């Protein structure tokens, strides 16, 4: 980035936004923005609190279970749609609808089906993440170079080898991109689920903070979640870079 003829690192822009936040907070200009420094102080306090630990563990549990199943089901459905034309015709439309639908509106219905507990939250996480993983896996599988398919066939590859030694690797860059986006959606799913369902764990904390106008705590918790989502996303990004060397040369 160039600023007034000086080369400045990209992280500099983040500093500008942080400074802006601090100034607006100190001026008391907009009441929902307390100063960043105060938020950061609260963040440290929250991280040390027991009820945060409990909330984090419950949320992480729902997040991991939901994410696990959305990867398993999403990758399976993506492969099915990519390899079986009939499956694509049957499922394609629905997957696309669900991937773009406002799923939050379905959560109340899920409550009726799965009750007011952790199950509904897990299902919410699953539903938030699974469709994008399905779509990306499908994109990866259906764009595998047909020559590779023929090549494996000509050397007598079994069905199993075809999937594990060729198709999986060929589609892996797209699968990983799908999982990364699924993770980000799953973070939303946990919070929305907890807010709408039974106001437990993180949802309960968010709800309490905002109802009592504890905006410093509210933003601190939001920041923690942002950093968590970003952290996971960059972890998968790191794995993605491991396969980048061939992602661009698959044509």
């Amino acid at each position, binding site marked *: 980035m160039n600023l007034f003829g000086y080369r400045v690192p990209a992280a500099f822009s983040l500093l500008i936004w942080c400074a802006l936040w601090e100034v607006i907070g100190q001026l008391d200009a907009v009441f929902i923005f307390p100063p960043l420094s105060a938020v950061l102080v609260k963040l440290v306090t929250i991280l040390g609190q027991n009820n945060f630990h409990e909330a984090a563990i419950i949320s992480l549990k729902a997040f991991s279970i939901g994410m696990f199943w959305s990867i398993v089901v999403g990758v399976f459905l993506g492969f099915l749609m990519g390899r079986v034309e009939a499956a694509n015709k049957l499922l394609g439309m629905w997957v696309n609808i669900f991937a773009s639908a406002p799923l939050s509106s379905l959560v109340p219905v899920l409550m009726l089906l799965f009750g007011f507990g952790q199950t509904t939250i897990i299902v919410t996480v699953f539903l938030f993440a699974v469709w994008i993983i399905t779509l990306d896996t499908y994109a990866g599988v259906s764009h595998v*170079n047909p*020559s*590779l398919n*023929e*090549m*494996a*066939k*000509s*050397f*007598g*590859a*079994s069905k199993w*080898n075809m999937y594990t*030694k*060729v198709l999986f*690797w*060929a589609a*892996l860059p797209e699968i990983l991109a799908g999982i990364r986006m699924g993770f980000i959606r799953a973070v939303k799913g946990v919070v929305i689920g907890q807010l709408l369902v039974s106001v437990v764990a993180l949802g309960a904390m968010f709800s309490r903070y905002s109802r009592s106008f504890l905006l410093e705590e509210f933003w601190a918790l939001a920041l923690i979640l942002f950093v968590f989502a970003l952290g996971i996303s960059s972890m998968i990004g790191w794995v993605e870079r491991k*396969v980048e*060397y*061939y992602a*661009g*040369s*698959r044509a």
Partner: protein
Amino acid sequence: MSSQTASLLVEETNQVNEQSNDIVEVTGIEKVYPGGTVALQGVDLAFPRGKMTTLLGPSGCGKTTLLKIIAGLLDATAGEVRINGKVVSGPGPERAFVFQDFALLPWATVVKNVAFGLEMQGVEKTLREKKAREYIIKVGLAGFEDNYPHELSGGMRQRVGLARALAVNADVLLMDEPFSAVDEQTRRLFQEELLRLLGMENKTVIFVTHSIEEAVYVSDQIVLLSPRPGRINRIVVPGIDRVGKTSDEIRRETGFLDTVEDIWDTLKKYLDDERMI
């Protein structure tokens, strides 16, 4: 029923004449694509053992389709393919395919790519990689064992494809325009090396190309296909004597040039026909 009797007759005559001589035989091959396009019609051909046969013709004459039917990658609408006298459906270990676009696994090193065929056959890892390394040296890629395909030039990638096909030790090599994606110098170098390798390995090669010069230079037998629907037009035997001659000397010989000219005259007619339409 009548086609069955016909194929039986062909089988009998083959048994009398050249049963041990023709490793690949195709009889009555017909291929109709969904939508009604007739790609091949009534193709009967025999490929002599240890010889190089080229399928030559303009684009759309079904030469690649025929090659893929022989490879077992495509099903024929009618007719049969026999390898060593046995009717085959689907790919088999006695045939290995070299692809026009190389078809290498971009995530695997050269060694892993060359060993792929052996891996599919269930050969144990150290053994198949040892064998792969031998063939990597044979095709002139020593030192590139641990490189990835995207780090290699087009010519080098096709050497990997060739090594992979040779490593499974199939009797029949099926090559689909293997040199069309490389530049002219590499192409000529490749033709030389292919002839040298085949001399050592004693393979039967079925080679698809649209280059007349290439066909005349490398082949023992050239099958000229006519387009839409693909049929056998004629079979040319170049009969080039390579002993003690350089590549340039052969290419300047009258015999070579006349054969090229002769084939060009035939193919030109198709081009003229196309233009008339």
